């Protein structure tokens, strides 16, 4: 990173520093009870201890595995479903009503359901994240594929591409901007579902840590786990935006 960009980043996130200072002052001065809000310095200390002990890493890795697996499956299936729905009317006729009914359902309602099906381990979390993330990806791919320019498809056909081949060569890349927007929404949803399902039905993961530490009264450690989730979510979104910009650099 060159110094100017580093400077910009520092400037942009300076308000966070302000919050950190207020947090510390509020907790230390007794304006807020230490139980409700342990001082930031204590929280960071607790974070460091859990990091050294490996607790954070083990639970963090478990959470990341669930997210990546669920989201990855959702992207693969969602893109395929969306494109086929846009391109083949019979497939759309079968799937569109299912997607429509499933779309407004709060996926957190499925937390107990997936737990009954697949237990308290990774499977239920992966299934839940998959189900929750698939819909926005499917809708993005569907809209993108439907909006693909007829003239582009015809051009490819006139150069010798088969109809199926144009799905890969023309329709999928045409849909890419909307697919990537859908995936960004899915990324946010995946964190929500991850943490809430781990809070409720899990013996591992960052969400489980938050619940477990909170129940045990270890509030400084609980806040440390919350900060970790926040940081991971933030980093994932930033990284994703960079990938997105790179993938769409051909746009004006």
């Amino acid at each position: 990173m060159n110094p100017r960009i580093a400077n910009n980043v520092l400037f942009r996130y300076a308000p966070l520093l302000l919050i950190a200072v207020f947090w510390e002052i509020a907790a230390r001065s007794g304006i807020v009870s230490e139980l409700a809000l342990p001082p930031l310095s204590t929280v960071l200390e607790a974070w460091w201890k859990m990091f050294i002990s490996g607790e954070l890493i083990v639970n963090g890795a478990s959470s990341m595995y669930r997210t990546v697996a669920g989201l990855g499956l959702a992207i693969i299936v969602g893109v395929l479903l969306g494109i086929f729905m846009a391109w083949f009317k019979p497939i759309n006729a079968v799937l569109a009503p299912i997607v429509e009914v499933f779309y407004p359902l709060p996926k957190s309602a499925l937390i107990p359901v997936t737990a009954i099906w697949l237990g308290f381990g990774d499977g239920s979390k992966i299934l839940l994240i998959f189900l929750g993330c698939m819909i926005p990806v499917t809708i993005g791919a569907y809209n993108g594929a439907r909006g693909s320019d007829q003239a582009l498809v015809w051009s490819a056909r006139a150069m010798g591409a088969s109809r199926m081949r144009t799905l890969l060569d023309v329709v999928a890349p045409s849909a890419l901007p909307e697919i990537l927007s859908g995936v960004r929404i899915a990324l946010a949803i995946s964190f929500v579902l991850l943490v809430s399902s781990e809070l409720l039905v899990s013996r591992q993961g960052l969400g489980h840590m938050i619940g477990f530490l909170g129940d045990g009264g270890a509030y400084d450690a609980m806040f440390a786990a919350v900060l970790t989730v926040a940081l991971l979510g933030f980093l994932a979104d930033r990284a994703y935006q960079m990938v997105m910009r790179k993938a769409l650099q051909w746009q004006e």
Partner: protein
Amino acid sequence: MAMNGAAQIVINRVSHVYRPPRGREVLALQDVSLEVRRREFVALLGPSGCGKSTLLYLIGGFLPTVDGTIAVEGRPVAGPGPDRGIVFQHFALFPWKTVRSNILYGLEKVGLERAEREKRAQAFIDMVGLSGFEDSYPSQLSGGMKQRTAIARTLAIDPDILLMDEPFGALDAQTRSLMQTELLAIWQRSRKTVIFVTHDVQEAVYLAERVAVMSARPGRIKTIVDTNFDKNDRAVFKQKAFIDKVDEIWELVRNEALAALEERAP
């Protein structure tokens, strides 16, 4: 039209009904017959909505011919193919591919070897004057450069027939004029059959050897006018014979354009 069976494209009594997703059916083409010789430059001229583009898409095989027949080289058209290249008004370049990759796409599809593909792509990039822009994306090009790329992409796979759908309609007047001259130069060198859709009378008379004047919807071929002027000289625009020919065809089109306007009025 007696052509001693030498026609490359034979359109025989073709009608076409357009069914929009919503709304009622429209008879876009009615009983259209036309024969085009090998290496001929024919313009399809008519008011907007007269079905001239539809006819082009039928020849291209993009739309199915249900009523009547279209044959190319004696075989009925069953779908699109690399023997019939197409150039669209809005270029239809793949926006995620660079100029070079756009041109390489068709060459991959027709199965050329890698080295040959690269060589050929470069030759066509040079031909249309886009050297130095090989790695630009379409969004970084002007309209004229985009259309040059599209023409190069189509010509690179060497189709026998070039279908052009108002290819210069989205360009400014100067670029359009330059592109017309370039197209004629290319046509004279490569001698492909060109079917050129336009609503610009002067453009049709200047470019084409024959102009098929179409009626307002439902589109029919009203008459076919010979327009074989000297294409190596843009001064032809000032010649009386040329001006008279434009006037003559403009008279034919005027009534159709008025009819088309009235149909559009609510």
